[in-house]
């Protein structure tokens, strides 16, 4: 990316960051929702683990770290503004971008970065408060290799989800009803379960995990946290990271192809 181009998208991210502070009440209430969801699932797992120091091959510290960790990784991976792309496709507002010297994907990715930073900042604060309040047993990873793998996996998951979510948004070209919300809702529900948001996926029966563990959704939350908890060997970690890179390539090519195909049938409804 050239310097001038970088500046352009940096400005988009900066504007988006400022926008986050304009609708402060909205943002705070959004974060309150996240905390409520986290507390609900945390206490459920706390109750499950309270009578067993080890269950599902997890210690209490590992399980609670996994659940609290999902909040942080959620902010990085699932925090996004680009979900609005489906509204723009459905309402015809996409026109505004087609006549501007701006890449649609890069535009939304820049806005997503700003949104993720804002969400991560709040998420760190929320987790700190919860740690002080609940004083849970926490698993601290000290192996530098695993920590580096965790960071890299988290960043790769973020990019993977961006393309995945964009693909969902682009279904609005073909199914524009309610600006693509019905299909997005179904995907949300499935993702919540298959990404490991409620529990680590490897507690599922082995036959089920063998299938679900291979889906792209398993890399969004489950894989980074499994690496953090040291449940992957170095070889498994390397193959997981490699798979994530392959998935990014596949999703990116598919998203670009779908966008081009979608533009051909785009009717700018509502304009």
């Amino acid at each position, binding site marked *: 990316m050239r310097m001038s181009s970088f500046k352009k998208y940096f400005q988009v991210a900066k504007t988006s960051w400022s926008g986050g502070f304009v609708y402060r009440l909205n943002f705070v209430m959004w974060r309150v929702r996240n905390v*409520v*969801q986290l507390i609900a699932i945390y*206490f459920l797992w706390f109750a499950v683990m309270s009578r067993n120091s080890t269950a599902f091959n997890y210690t209490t510290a590992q399980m609670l770290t996994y659940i609290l960790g999902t909040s942080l990784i959620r902010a990085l991976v699932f925090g996004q503004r680009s979900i609005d792309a489906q509204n723009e496709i459905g309402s015809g507002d996409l026109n505004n971008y087609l006549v501007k010297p701006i890449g649609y994907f890069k535009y939304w990715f820049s806005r997503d970065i700003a949104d993720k930073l804002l969400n991560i900042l709040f998420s760190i604060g929320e987790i700190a408060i919860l740690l002080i309040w609940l004083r849970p047993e926490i698993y601290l990873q000290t192996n530098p290799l695993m920590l580096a793998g965790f960071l890299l996996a988290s960043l790769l998951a973020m990019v993977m989800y961006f393309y995945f979510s964009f693909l969902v948004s682009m279904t609005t070209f073909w199914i524009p009803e309610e600006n693509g919300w019905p299909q997005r809702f179904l995907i949300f*529900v499935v993702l*919540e379960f298959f990404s490991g948001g409620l529990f680590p996926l490897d*507690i599922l029966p082995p036959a089920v995990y063998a299938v679900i563990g291979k889906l792209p959704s398993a890399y969004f939350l489950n894989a980074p946290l499994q690496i953090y908890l040291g449940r992957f060997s170095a070889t498994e970690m390397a193959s997981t990271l490699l798979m994530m890179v392959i998935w990014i390539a596949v999703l990116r090519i598919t998203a670009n192809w779908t966008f081009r195909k979608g533009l051909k049938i785009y009717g700018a409804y509502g304009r």
Partner: protein
Amino acid sequence: MADKLKRLRIYWKIWWTSSILSVESSLENRLGVIFLLSGKIVRFVFFIFFLVVINRQVQQIAGYSLNQMITFFLMFNLLDLFGQLFFRGIYWFRDQVVTGEFDFKLTKPVSPLFQALTRHTDILDLPLLVATVIFLFRQGITLTTAQSMIFLITLISGMVIVTAIHIAVAALGVMTTEVDHTIMIYRDLSMMARVPVDVYTDSVRALLTFVIPIAVAYTLPAKSLLGLVTLPTVILALAISALALTLSLRLWHYALTQYSSASS
């Protein structure tokens, strides 16, 4: 009395007509219906599967067996779907306040609160509601007459609280023009009752019982179905639901005095 019956018939007719229109409008987008309905069913099935997975290694959660946990989840669904099915109109209420469309509701000879809450009946929640009732019957729970009465009272008090919360959200909507996040925070809080509130700490439980009485609305009917509720608790539930309804109605009437009709 005759006047009241006549008023009731008018309200029934309005609700019935708007429900038929809602159904027709929902069914216009058939593919959307399939996606939304699938999402609701998948979410329901996944959570039960999740409880079953936990039960493979942990026999009891907070002292409850798998079957009891499923009963709590089914009762949560029953009351949640009651709110979703009948009071879906709240999700469109913000637009009415912001655009000033609410002015027209105020001029009609029908309660504006009734119009705000029941504007849309979500037919898509009906199949899951029926399924939930069937599953509850299949739980094979037997109750004595006294226990059945207690269950009915706690169920009605739960429905009253759910209604009261929707009224309070509508009132806050008039005062602050903020509805979407408020109702979603309520939905998230109510999700905490997918499992018995006994899993939470005392402070969280107190919050869910006395501040936003989710526990009274969702957990108590389930406990009464399991025969775990005593008479004093039923009286407390009745008092809390009556108080919640009274306060929410007062808040609504106060909110109407604050309505600025800004955009009209």
